[in-house]
Protein backbone atom coordinates (compact mmCIF):
# COMPACT_ATOMS: atom_id res chain seq x y z
CA UNK A 1 0.00 0.00 0.00
CA UNK A 2 1.47 3.27 -1.07
CA UNK A 3 1.04 6.01 1.44
CA UNK A 4 -0.16 9.39 0.28
CA UNK A 5 1.73 12.38 1.50
CA UNK A 6 -1.32 14.63 1.31
CA UNK A 7 -3.70 12.10 2.77
CA UNK A 8 -6.53 13.24 4.99
CA UNK A 9 -4.99 12.13 8.31
CA UNK A 10 -1.70 13.84 7.49
CA UNK A 11 -3.45 17.09 6.56
CA UNK A 12 -5.56 16.90 9.69
CA UNK A 13 -2.49 16.40 11.86
CA UNK A 14 -0.68 19.27 10.11
CA UNK A 15 -3.65 21.53 10.67
CA UNK A 16 -3.85 20.61 14.35
CA UNK A 17 -0.16 21.25 14.83
CA UNK A 18 -0.31 24.58 13.00
CA UNK A 19 -3.29 25.62 15.09
CA UNK A 20 -1.38 24.71 18.26
CA UNK A 21 1.65 26.61 17.00
CA UNK A 22 -0.39 29.70 16.13
CA UNK A 23 -2.37 29.74 19.35
CA UNK A 24 0.71 29.28 21.49
CA UNK A 25 2.53 31.97 19.54
CA UNK A 26 -0.33 34.37 20.08
CA UNK A 27 -0.39 33.40 23.75
CA UNK A 28 3.32 34.07 24.14
CA UNK A 29 3.06 37.41 22.32
CA UNK A 30 0.00 38.58 24.22
CA UNK A 31 1.32 37.38 27.55
CA UNK A 32 -1.44 34.84 28.22
CA UNK A 33 1.28 32.28 28.74
CA UNK A 34 3.58 33.47 31.48
CA UNK A 35 7.27 32.68 31.86
CA UNK A 36 6.70 29.69 34.08
CA UNK A 37 4.51 27.95 31.51
CA UNK A 38 6.83 29.04 28.72
CA UNK A 39 9.80 27.46 30.48
CA UNK A 40 7.97 24.17 30.89
CA UNK A 41 6.65 24.26 27.35
CA UNK A 42 10.19 24.67 26.03
CA UNK A 43 11.45 21.96 28.36
CA UNK A 44 8.76 19.62 27.07
CA UNK A 45 9.90 20.23 23.49
CA UNK A 46 13.57 19.64 24.35
CA UNK A 47 12.65 16.50 26.25
CA UNK A 48 10.57 15.22 23.36
CA UNK A 49 13.56 15.59 21.03
CA UNK A 50 15.80 13.83 23.56
CA UNK A 51 13.33 11.04 24.17
CA UNK A 52 12.61 10.23 20.53
CA UNK A 53 16.31 10.43 19.66
CA UNK A 54 17.23 7.96 22.39
CA UNK A 55 14.33 5.82 21.26
CA UNK A 56 16.04 5.35 17.88
CA UNK A 57 18.96 3.68 19.66
CA UNK A 58 17.33 1.96 22.62
CA UNK A 59 13.85 1.33 21.34
CA UNK A 60 14.07 0.78 17.61
CA UNK A 61 17.46 -0.83 17.34
CA UNK A 62 17.47 -2.39 20.78
CA UNK A 63 20.99 -1.22 21.59
CA UNK A 64 21.20 -0.13 25.16
CA UNK A 65 22.81 3.29 25.42
CA UNK A 66 22.92 5.15 28.73
CA UNK A 67 25.31 7.94 27.82
CA UNK A 68 22.92 10.11 25.85
CA UNK A 69 23.62 13.26 27.85
CA UNK A 70 27.18 13.20 26.49
CA UNK A 71 25.93 13.87 22.96
CA UNK A 72 23.63 16.54 24.28
CA UNK A 73 26.66 18.15 25.90
CA UNK A 74 28.55 18.18 22.60
CA UNK A 75 25.61 19.85 20.85
CA UNK A 76 25.22 22.38 23.63
CA UNK A 77 28.91 23.29 23.84
CA UNK A 78 29.52 23.16 20.10
CA UNK A 79 26.66 25.49 19.29
CA UNK A 80 27.40 27.84 22.20
CA UNK A 81 31.01 28.22 21.07
CA UNK A 82 29.79 28.98 17.54
CA UNK A 83 27.44 31.78 18.58
CA UNK A 84 29.37 33.15 21.57
CA UNK A 85 32.98 32.93 20.55
CA UNK A 86 32.88 32.79 16.77
CA UNK A 87 29.85 34.97 16.09
CA UNK A 88 28.00 32.62 13.76
CA UNK A 89 24.21 32.85 13.35
CA UNK A 90 22.05 30.54 15.41
CA UNK A 91 21.00 28.34 12.50
CA UNK A 92 24.61 27.53 11.64
CA UNK A 93 25.35 26.88 15.31
CA UNK A 94 22.47 24.41 15.52
CA UNK A 95 23.82 22.51 12.54
CA UNK A 96 27.35 22.48 13.91
CA UNK A 97 26.14 21.30 17.32
CA UNK A 98 24.04 18.52 15.87
CA UNK A 99 26.64 17.41 13.32
CA UNK A 100 29.34 17.52 15.99
CA UNK A 101 27.27 15.26 18.20
CA UNK A 102 26.57 12.95 15.26
CA UNK A 103 30.31 12.70 14.54
CA UNK A 104 30.93 11.88 18.18
CA UNK A 105 28.20 9.27 17.92
CA UNK A 106 29.92 7.78 14.91
CA UNK A 107 33.31 7.72 16.64
CA UNK A 108 31.84 6.23 19.81
CA UNK A 109 29.57 3.87 17.94
CA UNK A 110 32.03 2.13 15.65
CA UNK A 111 34.10 0.49 18.40
CA UNK A 112 31.43 0.07 21.08
CA UNK A 113 28.55 -1.27 19.04
CA UNK A 114 30.39 -4.56 18.69
CA UNK A 115 29.54 -5.04 22.35
CA UNK A 116 26.22 -6.42 23.44
CA UNK A 117 23.64 -5.82 26.12
CA UNK A 118 24.95 -4.65 29.44
CA UNK A 119 28.55 -4.36 28.26
CA UNK A 120 27.36 -1.87 25.66
CA UNK A 121 25.39 -0.03 28.33
CA UNK A 122 28.45 0.32 30.50
CA UNK A 123 30.65 1.38 27.57
CA UNK A 124 28.21 4.11 26.51
CA UNK A 125 28.00 5.26 30.10
CA UNK A 126 31.79 5.38 30.13
CA UNK A 127 31.88 7.41 26.93
CA UNK A 128 29.28 9.80 28.30
CA UNK A 129 31.48 10.36 31.33
CA UNK A 130 34.62 10.71 29.21
CA UNK A 131 32.95 13.41 27.10
CA UNK A 132 32.00 15.23 30.28
CA UNK A 133 35.49 14.99 31.74
CA UNK A 134 37.06 16.21 28.49
CA UNK A 135 34.76 19.25 28.44
CA UNK A 136 35.56 19.81 32.10
CA UNK A 137 39.24 20.00 31.21
CA UNK A 138 38.97 22.45 28.30
CA UNK A 139 39.65 25.93 29.59
CA UNK A 140 38.35 27.46 26.34
CA UNK A 141 34.80 26.45 27.24
CA UNK A 142 35.08 27.49 30.86
CA UNK A 143 36.09 24.20 32.52
CA UNK A 144 34.03 23.36 35.59
CA UNK A 145 32.42 26.83 35.68
CA UNK A 146 30.91 26.25 32.24
CA UNK A 147 29.83 28.80 29.67
CA UNK A 148 27.80 31.75 30.83
CA UNK A 149 25.95 34.48 28.97
CA UNK A 150 24.89 32.49 25.93
CA UNK A 151 22.44 34.55 23.92
CA UNK A 152 18.85 33.37 24.13
CA UNK A 153 18.21 32.54 20.51
CA UNK A 154 15.88 29.63 21.14
CA UNK A 155 12.38 30.94 20.58
CA UNK A 156 9.04 29.34 19.96
CA UNK A 157 9.50 29.16 16.17
CA UNK A 158 12.80 27.34 16.36
CA UNK A 159 11.82 24.97 19.09
CA UNK A 160 8.38 24.12 17.72
CA UNK A 161 9.43 23.43 14.15
CA UNK A 162 12.57 21.57 15.16
CA UNK A 163 10.62 19.36 17.52
CA UNK A 164 8.07 18.57 14.82
CA UNK A 165 10.83 18.01 12.28
CA UNK A 166 12.67 15.66 14.64
CA UNK A 167 9.60 13.55 15.26
CA UNK A 168 8.75 13.49 11.54
CA UNK A 169 12.25 12.52 10.45
CA UNK A 170 12.50 9.78 13.05
CA UNK A 171 9.01 8.49 12.33
CA UNK A 172 9.78 8.29 8.62
CA UNK A 173 13.13 6.68 9.34
CA UNK A 174 11.33 4.11 11.42
CA UNK A 175 8.98 3.11 8.61
CA UNK A 176 11.70 3.18 5.94
CA UNK A 177 13.74 0.21 4.75
CA UNK A 178 16.56 1.27 7.05
CA UNK A 179 14.26 1.64 10.02
CA UNK A 180 12.83 -1.81 9.43
CA UNK A 181 16.33 -3.19 9.34
CA UNK A 182 16.95 -1.59 12.73
CA UNK A 183 13.75 -3.09 14.12
CA UNK A 184 14.82 -6.47 12.78
CA UNK A 185 18.07 -6.13 14.73
CA UNK A 186 16.10 -5.41 17.88
CA UNK A 187 13.84 -8.39 17.41
CA UNK A 188 16.59 -10.88 16.72
CA UNK A 189 20.10 -9.94 15.85
CA UNK A 190 21.16 -13.33 14.55
CA UNK A 191 18.04 -13.75 12.43
CA UNK A 192 18.48 -10.24 11.03
CA UNK A 193 22.06 -10.98 10.09
CA UNK A 194 21.01 -14.21 8.42
CA UNK A 195 18.48 -12.29 6.37
CA UNK A 196 21.25 -10.09 5.05
CA UNK A 197 20.97 -7.06 7.32
CA UNK A 198 24.36 -5.44 7.83
CA UNK A 199 23.94 -5.20 11.58
CA UNK A 200 27.05 -3.19 12.45
CA UNK A 201 26.22 -0.62 9.79
CA UNK A 202 22.63 -0.17 10.92
CA UNK A 203 23.59 -0.01 14.56
CA UNK A 204 26.05 2.76 13.77
CA UNK A 205 23.47 4.57 11.63
CA UNK A 206 20.91 4.45 14.43
CA UNK A 207 23.48 5.57 16.96
CA UNK A 208 24.56 8.48 14.77
CA UNK A 209 20.99 9.61 14.13
CA UNK A 210 20.23 9.45 17.86
CA UNK A 211 23.35 11.45 18.66
CA UNK A 212 22.52 14.02 15.97
CA UNK A 213 19.14 14.87 17.48
CA UNK A 214 20.51 14.76 21.01
CA UNK A 215 23.04 17.37 19.87
CA UNK A 216 20.21 19.43 18.43
CA UNK A 217 18.37 19.27 21.75
CA UNK A 218 21.56 20.27 23.53
CA UNK A 219 21.99 23.29 21.25
CA UNK A 220 18.40 24.41 21.87
CA UNK A 221 18.90 23.86 25.59
CA UNK A 222 22.09 25.94 25.69
CA UNK A 223 20.48 28.85 23.83
CA UNK A 224 17.48 28.93 26.08
CA UNK A 225 19.04 28.67 29.54
CA UNK A 226 21.90 31.19 29.02
CA UNK A 227 24.36 28.96 30.86
CA UNK A 228 25.72 25.42 30.59
CA UNK A 229 28.00 23.45 32.88
CA UNK A 230 29.58 20.02 32.50
CA UNK A 231 27.55 18.80 35.50
CA UNK A 232 24.31 19.58 33.63
CA UNK A 233 25.09 16.69 31.32
CA UNK A 234 26.03 14.03 33.84
CA UNK A 235 24.69 10.55 34.33
CA UNK A 236 21.58 11.99 35.99
CA UNK A 237 20.58 13.64 32.72
CA UNK A 238 21.10 10.41 30.79
CA UNK A 239 18.96 8.69 33.39
CA UNK A 240 16.16 11.24 32.95
CA UNK A 241 16.11 10.63 29.20
CA UNK A 242 16.20 6.88 29.74
CA UNK A 243 13.15 7.11 32.01
CA UNK A 244 11.18 8.89 29.27
CA UNK A 245 11.93 6.16 26.78
CA UNK A 246 11.44 3.21 29.10
CA UNK A 247 8.25 4.54 30.62
CA UNK A 248 6.73 5.37 27.26
CA UNK A 249 7.66 2.03 25.80
CA UNK A 250 10.91 1.07 24.11
CA UNK A 251 10.20 1.38 20.41
CA UNK A 252 7.14 3.62 20.56
CA UNK A 253 7.59 7.23 19.46
CA UNK A 254 4.11 8.09 20.71
CA UNK A 255 5.02 6.62 24.06
CA UNK A 256 8.25 8.62 24.23
CA UNK A 257 6.42 11.84 23.41
CA UNK A 258 3.65 11.18 25.92
CA UNK A 259 6.02 10.27 28.72
CA UNK A 260 8.29 13.24 27.94
CA UNK A 261 5.27 15.52 28.28
CA UNK A 262 3.88 13.75 31.34
CA UNK A 263 7.13 13.53 33.26
CA UNK A 264 8.12 17.12 32.47
CA UNK A 265 4.78 18.30 33.82
CA UNK A 266 5.22 16.03 36.85
CA UNK A 267 8.66 17.41 37.61
CA UNK A 268 7.35 20.96 37.20
CA UNK A 269 4.86 20.18 39.97
CA UNK A 270 7.57 18.61 42.09
CA UNK A 271 10.03 21.43 41.44
CA UNK A 272 10.20 22.41 45.09
CA UNK A 273 10.87 18.84 46.16
CA UNK A 274 13.79 17.84 43.97
CA UNK A 275 14.68 14.83 46.13
CA UNK A 276 11.13 13.56 46.15
CA UNK A 277 11.10 13.86 42.38
CA UNK A 278 14.02 11.46 42.09
CA UNK A 279 12.36 9.02 44.49
CA UNK A 280 9.21 9.07 42.40
CA UNK A 281 11.18 8.72 39.15
CA UNK A 282 13.11 5.75 40.38
CA UNK A 283 10.06 4.06 41.88
CA UNK A 284 8.19 4.61 38.60
CA UNK A 285 11.03 2.98 36.74
CA UNK A 286 11.14 -0.05 39.05
CA UNK A 287 7.37 -0.49 39.12
CA UNK A 288 7.04 -0.16 35.35
CA UNK A 289 9.75 -2.78 34.90
CA UNK A 290 8.10 -5.17 37.35
CA UNK A 291 4.52 -4.68 36.23
CA UNK A 292 4.72 -3.67 32.58
CA UNK A 293 8.25 -4.18 31.26
CA UNK A 294 7.24 -3.12 27.75
CA UNK A 295 6.36 0.40 28.98
CA UNK A 296 3.06 2.20 28.75
CA UNK A 297 2.69 1.95 24.98
CA UNK A 298 4.80 -1.10 24.25
CA UNK A 299 5.79 -0.68 20.63
CA UNK A 300 2.36 0.63 19.60
CA UNK A 301 2.00 3.96 17.84
CA UNK A 302 -0.71 6.54 17.64
CA UNK A 303 -3.03 6.08 14.68
CA UNK A 304 -6.51 7.31 13.82
CA UNK A 305 -7.65 3.76 13.35
CA UNK A 306 -6.41 2.90 16.84
CA UNK A 307 -8.31 5.86 18.28
CA UNK A 308 -11.45 4.83 16.46
CA UNK A 309 -11.11 1.28 17.79
CA UNK A 310 -10.57 2.57 21.30
CA UNK A 311 -13.63 4.79 20.99
CA UNK A 312 -15.71 1.88 19.82
CA UNK A 313 -14.53 -0.29 22.65
CA UNK A 314 -15.14 2.35 25.30
CA UNK A 315 -18.55 3.34 24.03
CA UNK A 316 -19.64 -0.27 23.74
CA UNK A 317 -20.13 -0.13 19.99
CA UNK A 318 -18.66 -2.55 17.56
CA UNK A 319 -19.61 -5.50 19.72
CA UNK A 320 -20.75 -7.59 16.85
CA UNK A 321 -21.06 -11.32 17.28
CA UNK A 322 -17.86 -11.64 15.24
CA UNK A 323 -15.50 -9.95 17.65
CA UNK A 324 -17.04 -10.63 21.00
CA UNK A 325 -16.58 -14.26 21.83
CA UNK A 326 -17.79 -13.89 25.40
CA UNK A 327 -21.30 -13.09 24.25
CA UNK A 328 -21.42 -15.28 21.19
Amino acid sequence: MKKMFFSLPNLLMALLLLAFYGLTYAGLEQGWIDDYYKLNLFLICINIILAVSLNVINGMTGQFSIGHAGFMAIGAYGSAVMTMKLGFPFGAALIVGAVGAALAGLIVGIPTLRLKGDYLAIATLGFGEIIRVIILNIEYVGGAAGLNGIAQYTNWHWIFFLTVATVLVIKNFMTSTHGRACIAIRENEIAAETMGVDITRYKVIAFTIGAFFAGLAGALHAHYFYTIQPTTFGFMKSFDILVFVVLGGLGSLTGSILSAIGLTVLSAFLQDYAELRMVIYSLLLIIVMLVRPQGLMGTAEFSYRGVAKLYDRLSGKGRGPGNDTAVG
Partner: protein
Amino acid sequence: MEVFFQQLINGLSLGSIYALIALGYTMVYGIIRLINFAHGDVYMVGAYVGFWATTQGWGFLPALLLSMVVCAVLGMVIERLAYKRLREAPRIAVLITAIGVSFFLESTGVLAVGAKVRTFPNVFPEVKFQLFNGAIVVTNRQLVIMVVTVLLMLLLQYIVHRTKIGKAMRAVSHDAQAAMLMGINVNNTVSATFAIGSALAAAAGVLVGVYYNAINPYMGIMPGLKAFVAAVVGGIGVIPGAFVGGLSLGVIEALVSGYGSSLWRDAVAFALLIIILIVKPSGLFGSNAREKV
Protein backbone atom coordinates in the same frame (compact mmCIF):
# COMPACT_ATOMS: atom_id res chain seq x y z
CA MET B 1 60.74 7.73 42.19
CA GLU B 2 59.40 8.86 45.57
CA VAL B 3 56.27 10.11 43.83
CA PHE B 4 55.87 6.72 42.25
CA PHE B 5 56.09 4.75 45.47
CA GLN B 6 53.97 7.22 47.36
CA GLN B 7 51.25 7.04 44.72
CA LEU B 8 51.61 3.27 44.65
CA ILE B 9 50.73 3.14 48.34
CA ASN B 10 47.87 5.62 47.95
CA GLY B 11 46.67 3.65 44.96
CA LEU B 12 46.77 0.34 46.80
CA SER B 13 44.59 1.67 49.58
CA LEU B 14 42.15 3.25 47.15
CA GLY B 15 42.29 0.09 45.06
CA SER B 16 41.44 -2.04 48.09
CA ILE B 17 38.15 -0.15 48.34
CA TYR B 18 37.45 -0.73 44.65
CA ALA B 19 38.38 -4.37 45.05
CA LEU B 20 35.93 -4.89 47.91
CA ILE B 21 33.09 -3.35 45.92
CA ALA B 22 34.13 -5.13 42.73
CA LEU B 23 33.93 -8.50 44.47
CA GLY B 24 30.20 -7.99 45.03
CA TYR B 25 29.68 -6.96 41.41
CA THR B 26 31.57 -9.89 40.08
CA MET B 27 29.84 -12.45 42.32
CA VAL B 28 26.37 -11.20 41.46
CA TYR B 29 27.18 -11.01 37.77
CA GLY B 30 28.69 -14.46 37.87
CA ILE B 31 25.58 -15.96 39.38
CA ILE B 32 22.65 -14.20 37.69
CA ARG B 33 24.32 -12.17 34.90
CA LEU B 34 23.12 -8.89 36.35
CA ILE B 35 25.07 -5.66 36.62
CA ASN B 36 23.80 -4.67 40.00
CA PHE B 37 23.92 -0.90 39.61
CA ALA B 38 22.58 -0.52 43.12
CA HIS B 39 25.74 -2.09 44.51
CA GLY B 40 27.52 1.27 44.81
CA ASP B 41 24.61 2.57 46.82
CA VAL B 42 24.70 -0.39 49.17
CA TYR B 43 28.26 0.73 49.83
CA MET B 44 26.90 4.22 50.60
CA VAL B 45 24.35 2.75 53.03
CA GLY B 46 27.17 0.79 54.64
CA ALA B 47 29.12 3.98 55.17
CA TYR B 48 26.10 5.62 56.82
CA VAL B 49 25.48 2.67 59.11
CA GLY B 50 29.13 2.81 60.12
CA PHE B 51 28.79 6.54 60.63
CA TRP B 52 25.78 6.06 62.88
CA ALA B 53 27.45 3.34 64.90
CA THR B 54 30.68 5.24 65.45
CA THR B 55 28.86 8.44 66.43
CA GLN B 56 27.03 6.30 69.00
CA GLY B 57 30.44 5.55 70.44
CA TRP B 58 30.95 2.09 68.96
CA GLY B 59 34.46 1.00 68.14
CA PHE B 60 35.73 0.37 64.63
CA LEU B 61 35.25 -3.39 64.54
CA PRO B 62 31.70 -3.50 65.98
CA ALA B 63 30.70 -0.70 63.61
CA LEU B 64 32.21 -2.60 60.68
CA LEU B 65 30.37 -5.78 61.64
CA LEU B 66 27.05 -4.02 62.20
CA SER B 67 27.30 -2.29 58.86
CA MET B 68 28.11 -5.57 57.11
CA VAL B 69 25.13 -7.31 58.69
CA VAL B 70 22.70 -4.48 57.89
CA CYS B 71 23.84 -4.31 54.28
CA ALA B 72 23.73 -8.09 53.88
CA VAL B 73 20.05 -7.91 54.83
CA LEU B 74 19.53 -4.91 52.55
CA GLY B 75 21.13 -6.74 49.64
CA MET B 76 18.86 -9.74 50.14
CA VAL B 77 15.77 -7.52 50.40
CA ILE B 78 16.68 -5.70 47.17
CA GLU B 79 17.16 -9.01 45.39
CA ARG B 80 13.85 -10.43 46.64
CA LEU B 81 11.78 -7.33 45.91
CA ALA B 82 13.26 -6.00 42.72
CA TYR B 83 15.31 -8.60 40.88
CA LYS B 84 13.82 -11.98 41.69
CA ARG B 85 10.68 -11.53 39.61
CA LEU B 86 12.76 -10.49 36.65
CA ARG B 87 15.08 -13.47 36.58
CA GLU B 88 13.58 -14.74 33.34
CA ALA B 89 12.99 -11.25 31.89
CA PRO B 90 15.25 -9.72 29.21
CA ARG B 91 18.57 -8.57 30.63
CA ILE B 92 17.82 -4.96 29.71
CA ALA B 93 14.68 -4.95 31.89
CA VAL B 94 16.75 -6.13 34.85
CA LEU B 95 19.44 -3.57 34.12
CA ILE B 96 16.90 -0.74 34.06
CA THR B 97 15.43 -2.01 37.33
CA ALA B 98 18.91 -2.02 38.84
CA ILE B 99 19.45 1.58 37.76
CA GLY B 100 16.08 2.41 39.29
CA VAL B 101 17.00 0.75 42.59
CA SER B 102 20.28 2.64 42.58
CA PHE B 103 18.58 6.01 42.17
CA PHE B 104 15.94 5.01 44.68
CA LEU B 105 18.55 4.33 47.36
CA GLU B 106 20.36 7.60 46.58
CA SER B 107 17.30 9.81 46.59
CA THR B 108 15.86 8.10 49.65
CA GLY B 109 19.23 8.66 51.28
CA VAL B 110 19.01 12.35 50.46
CA LEU B 111 15.48 12.51 51.85
CA ALA B 112 16.43 10.63 54.99
CA VAL B 113 19.76 12.15 55.96
CA GLY B 114 20.06 15.23 53.76
CA ALA B 115 22.40 15.84 50.84
CA LYS B 116 25.11 17.47 52.92
CA VAL B 117 28.49 15.91 53.51
CA ARG B 118 28.89 14.32 56.97
CA THR B 119 32.18 14.17 58.76
CA PHE B 120 33.01 10.66 59.83
CA PRO B 121 34.16 10.40 63.46
CA ASN B 122 37.86 10.01 63.97
CA VAL B 123 38.02 6.34 64.95
CA PHE B 124 41.76 6.08 64.57
CA PRO B 125 43.94 9.02 65.49
CA GLU B 126 46.06 9.34 62.38
CA VAL B 127 49.59 8.00 62.76
CA LYS B 128 52.05 8.57 59.97
CA PHE B 129 54.90 6.19 59.35
CA GLN B 130 57.81 7.76 57.57
CA LEU B 131 59.73 5.40 55.34
CA PHE B 132 63.04 6.07 53.59
CA ASN B 133 63.82 9.21 55.60
CA GLY B 134 60.36 10.61 55.15
CA ALA B 135 60.27 10.24 51.41
CA ILE B 136 57.24 7.99 51.59
CA VAL B 137 54.44 8.33 54.11
CA VAL B 138 52.12 5.49 55.08
CA THR B 139 49.27 6.21 57.48
CA ASN B 140 47.82 3.70 59.88
CA ARG B 141 44.44 4.17 58.14
CA GLN B 142 45.89 3.00 54.86
CA LEU B 143 47.32 -0.02 56.62
CA VAL B 144 43.95 -0.80 58.21
CA ILE B 145 42.23 -0.62 54.82
CA MET B 146 44.74 -2.95 53.20
CA VAL B 147 44.77 -5.44 56.07
CA VAL B 148 40.97 -5.57 56.36
CA THR B 149 40.66 -6.01 52.60
CA VAL B 150 43.15 -8.85 52.47
CA LEU B 151 41.49 -10.57 55.44
CA LEU B 152 38.03 -10.28 53.87
CA MET B 153 39.39 -11.51 50.59
CA LEU B 154 40.87 -14.59 52.28
CA LEU B 155 37.59 -15.17 54.11
CA LEU B 156 35.71 -14.94 50.83
CA GLN B 157 38.06 -17.41 49.18
CA TYR B 158 37.46 -19.76 52.09
CA ILE B 159 33.68 -19.40 51.82
CA VAL B 160 33.62 -19.89 48.07
CA HIS B 161 36.00 -22.84 47.93
CA ARG B 162 35.63 -24.64 51.24
CA THR B 163 32.02 -24.33 52.38
CA LYS B 164 28.80 -25.89 51.19
CA ILE B 165 27.19 -22.58 50.28
CA GLY B 166 30.30 -21.64 48.32
CA LYS B 167 30.09 -24.88 46.40
CA ALA B 168 26.42 -24.13 45.68
CA MET B 169 27.36 -20.66 44.47
CA ARG B 170 29.95 -22.02 42.10
CA ALA B 171 27.50 -24.62 40.82
CA VAL B 172 24.72 -22.08 40.21
CA SER B 173 27.05 -19.70 38.43
CA HIS B 174 28.25 -22.55 36.23
CA ASP B 175 24.78 -23.70 35.23
CA ALA B 176 21.76 -22.63 37.26
CA GLN B 177 19.39 -25.19 35.79
CA ALA B 178 21.68 -28.13 36.25
CA ALA B 179 22.32 -26.97 39.81
CA MET B 180 18.61 -26.87 40.47
CA LEU B 181 18.24 -30.42 39.15
CA MET B 182 20.98 -31.51 41.52
CA GLY B 183 18.86 -30.29 44.43
CA ILE B 184 20.56 -26.97 45.06
CA ASN B 185 18.20 -24.25 46.25
CA VAL B 186 18.98 -21.62 43.63
CA ASN B 187 16.96 -18.86 45.29
CA ASN B 188 18.74 -19.22 48.60
CA THR B 189 22.09 -19.38 46.87
CA VAL B 190 21.39 -16.16 44.98
CA SER B 191 20.28 -14.54 48.23
CA ALA B 192 23.48 -15.64 49.91
CA THR B 193 25.51 -14.19 47.06
CA PHE B 194 23.76 -10.85 47.41
CA ALA B 195 24.27 -10.95 51.17
CA ILE B 196 28.00 -11.65 50.92
CA GLY B 197 28.55 -9.11 48.15
CA SER B 198 26.62 -6.42 49.99
CA ALA B 199 28.48 -7.12 53.23
CA LEU B 200 31.77 -6.60 51.41
CA ALA B 201 30.49 -3.33 49.93
CA ALA B 202 29.44 -2.22 53.41
CA ALA B 203 32.94 -2.95 54.70
CA ALA B 204 34.31 -0.80 51.89
CA GLY B 205 31.90 1.97 52.87
CA VAL B 206 33.03 1.99 56.48
CA LEU B 207 36.69 1.89 55.42
CA VAL B 208 36.19 4.83 53.09
CA GLY B 209 34.50 6.76 55.86
CA VAL B 210 37.49 6.11 58.09
CA TYR B 211 39.96 6.98 55.33
CA TYR B 212 38.44 10.14 53.84
CA ASN B 213 36.37 11.24 56.85
CA ALA B 214 33.55 12.44 54.62
CA ILE B 215 30.41 10.70 53.38
CA ASN B 216 27.35 11.83 51.40
CA PRO B 217 24.37 10.07 49.76
CA TYR B 218 25.90 10.29 46.29
CA MET B 219 29.26 8.85 47.29
CA GLY B 220 28.33 5.47 45.82
CA ILE B 221 27.94 6.49 42.17
CA MET B 222 31.54 6.93 41.08
CA PRO B 223 33.17 4.20 43.18
CA GLY B 224 30.33 1.90 42.15
CA LEU B 225 30.94 2.51 38.46
CA LYS B 226 34.68 2.24 38.89
CA ALA B 227 34.39 -0.96 40.86
CA PHE B 228 32.40 -2.30 37.96
CA VAL B 229 35.25 -1.24 35.67
CA ALA B 230 37.59 -3.09 37.99
CA ALA B 231 35.42 -6.20 37.83
CA VAL B 232 35.38 -6.09 34.03
CA VAL B 233 39.12 -5.51 33.85
CA GLY B 234 39.73 -8.55 36.02
CA GLY B 235 37.22 -10.64 34.12
CA ILE B 236 33.67 -10.43 35.36
CA GLY B 237 32.60 -13.44 37.36
CA VAL B 238 36.16 -14.23 38.44
CA ILE B 239 36.77 -13.47 42.12
CA PRO B 240 40.57 -13.08 42.11
CA GLY B 241 40.12 -11.02 38.93
CA ALA B 242 37.99 -8.48 40.77
CA PHE B 243 40.65 -8.22 43.46
CA VAL B 244 43.50 -7.67 41.00
CA GLY B 245 41.33 -5.38 38.84
CA GLY B 246 40.41 -3.23 41.82
CA LEU B 247 43.98 -2.87 43.00
CA SER B 248 45.30 -2.07 39.52
CA LEU B 249 42.58 0.49 38.88
CA GLY B 250 43.36 2.17 42.18
CA VAL B 251 47.07 2.29 41.37
CA ILE B 252 46.48 3.62 37.85
CA GLU B 253 44.20 6.34 39.16
CA ALA B 254 46.65 7.34 41.85
CA LEU B 255 49.47 7.51 39.31
CA VAL B 256 47.37 9.65 36.97
CA SER B 257 46.59 11.98 39.86
CA GLY B 258 50.22 12.05 40.93
CA TYR B 259 51.78 12.67 37.55
CA GLY B 260 48.99 14.33 35.61
CA SER B 261 45.86 16.03 36.76
CA SER B 262 43.32 14.58 39.14
CA LEU B 263 40.62 16.01 36.87
CA TRP B 264 41.46 13.35 34.30
CA ARG B 265 41.22 10.52 36.83
CA ASP B 266 37.63 9.56 36.06
CA ALA B 267 38.18 9.60 32.31
CA VAL B 268 41.16 7.24 32.63
CA ALA B 269 39.11 4.62 34.43
CA PHE B 270 36.46 4.62 31.72
CA ALA B 271 39.00 4.69 28.93
CA LEU B 272 40.57 1.61 30.50
CA LEU B 273 37.15 -0.02 30.58
CA ILE B 274 36.50 0.65 26.92
CA ILE B 275 39.93 -0.56 25.86
CA ILE B 276 39.50 -3.77 27.84
CA LEU B 277 36.01 -4.31 26.46
CA ILE B 278 37.21 -3.90 22.91
CA VAL B 279 40.50 -5.76 23.13
CA LYS B 280 39.69 -8.53 25.58
CA PRO B 281 36.05 -8.43 26.69
CA SER B 282 36.49 -11.43 28.95
CA GLY B 283 38.97 -9.47 31.08
CA LEU B 284 42.44 -10.33 32.28
CA PHE B 285 41.47 -13.54 34.06
CA GLY B 286 38.30 -14.48 32.25
CA SER B 287 38.01 -17.27 29.78
CA ASN B 288 36.30 -16.77 26.47
CA ALA B 289 32.84 -18.22 26.46
CA ARG B 290 31.22 -18.77 23.11
CA GLU B 291 27.74 -17.40 22.78
CA LYS B 292 25.15 -20.07 22.29
CA VAL B 293 22.65 -19.45 19.55
